[in-house]
Structures are given as C-alpha cells and as structure tokens.
C-alpha cells in the first residue's frame, strides 16, 4: 500500500495507479480530467488502463501499477 501524498492545497494527491478505484477522479499528465468507469489490462504487458466511458467523454489513460497518478477525488 502506497501512502497518499499531498499534491496541493486543493486536496489533490498522488497515489499509486494500482490503488485507483472505479469512480475516482483523476487528472492525466496532459491535463485531462477523467472519472474512472472501468479499469482493464492495457495492451502492453504489466500495465493497466483507466477508462472513462460516459456521456461526458471517452478517454483512456494507461499506467504502470506502481506509477503515481494525480487523484482529484475519491469515487
């Protein structure tokens, strides 16, 4: 378990990708914000992909399980 670390005063924090849950709100490195509706294996072995498939957008963000991702809000 990776301990959450503060990212800024707005309550953002970074967590390990492996700890992301359905419903979490993330921000990708390009600045896109997404709400995770699905977590699946990525096309490259050992990686996972977060998908938002909603009426708002369809967006996929892959990550290594131990990589840090920016969590904006818990689902």
């Amino acid at each position, binding site marked *: 378990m990776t301990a959450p670390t503060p990212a800024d005063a707005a309550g953002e924090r970074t967590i390990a990708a492996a700890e992301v849950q359905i419903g979490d709100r993330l921000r*990708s*490195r*390009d*600045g*896109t914000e997404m709400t995770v509706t699905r977590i699946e294996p*990525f*096309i*490259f072995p050992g990686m996972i992909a977060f998908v938002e*498939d*909603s*009426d708002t*957008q*369809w*967006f*996929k*963000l*892959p990550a290594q399980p131990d990589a840090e991702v920016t969590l904006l809000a818990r689902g």
Partner: protein
Amino acid sequence: MHLPQTRLDGTPFADGELDEKALLIVNVASRCGLAPQYTGLEALQKRFGSERFTVLGVPCNQFAGQEPGTPEEIQSFCSATYGTTFPLAAKTDVNGVRQDPLYRELTAFPDAAGEAGEVQWNFEKFLLDGAHNIVARFRPTVEPESDEVIAAIERVLA
C-alpha cells in the same frame, strides 16, 4: 461506409480521392510511443499508394491526450518528422458516445482473434477493399510493414 468528408486542414476530400480505393485507416497520435509507426505507414504509402490504395490517418485525442495539437501542428509534425504524404482526416472520436459513424462501423469488425469492439489504442488499423468492405483489423502493436498487413493489402489489390 461513412468515410471522412473533411481533411485535417478543414478542406473537403476531392472527388475520387478516397472513392473506389482500398484504404488502410489508422487512428494516429503525434505524442504516442507508437508514433514511429508513421515510418512504416509511409513506407506502405510509397509501396502501394496509387489510384487503388491509400493510407488514411485519423488523428484522435482520446488516448491519454496524445494528439492535442492544432491541425497545423499535427500536419507539420507528420510531414517534418516522418515525411508523410498520405492524407489525414479531421480529428475524430473513435470510441464512446461521440464516436464517429465511420468508427461505429469499423469497430463492429473483429480482429484476427475474433474480438470486435472499441479501438484499443493509437495506431489501430482497419483495411478496406476498393468497395469499402472491411476486410481486416490489426491492433496497435501490429507493425504497418508486418507480413500480415502487407499480405492483406496485396490480397485486396490482387
């Protein structure tokens, strides 16, 4: 088949530019780790491009936001970095509620493993024959110049 009507620069495709040609349709993204596949795609265009075949790039920003640029930036990147000569369509959603009608048709077609559905990532490839029937689907990690892609193109052009 709902082929793209508009080029990346906003101008319409010319009459006959796509009609009756076999097409290799590829969703592309400049910042993707697979962007070197542009080299292979351009090699296919050089080898097979004619009145009967063209590669068609479809920029898409739905995969990690790896195609964020303006049309000018995307075109410049492709031309300057990889010397591409094949046409690019306007930026397109390939999955989801705003999925382009073209991709609604393409994604219903299965890959070699029998799996249809969403485009997995940048540089997924769909081969259409001259009547624009979908004949093959290649996932992103299949290299453009792989034996299976070349054989499929040769079959539709035979």
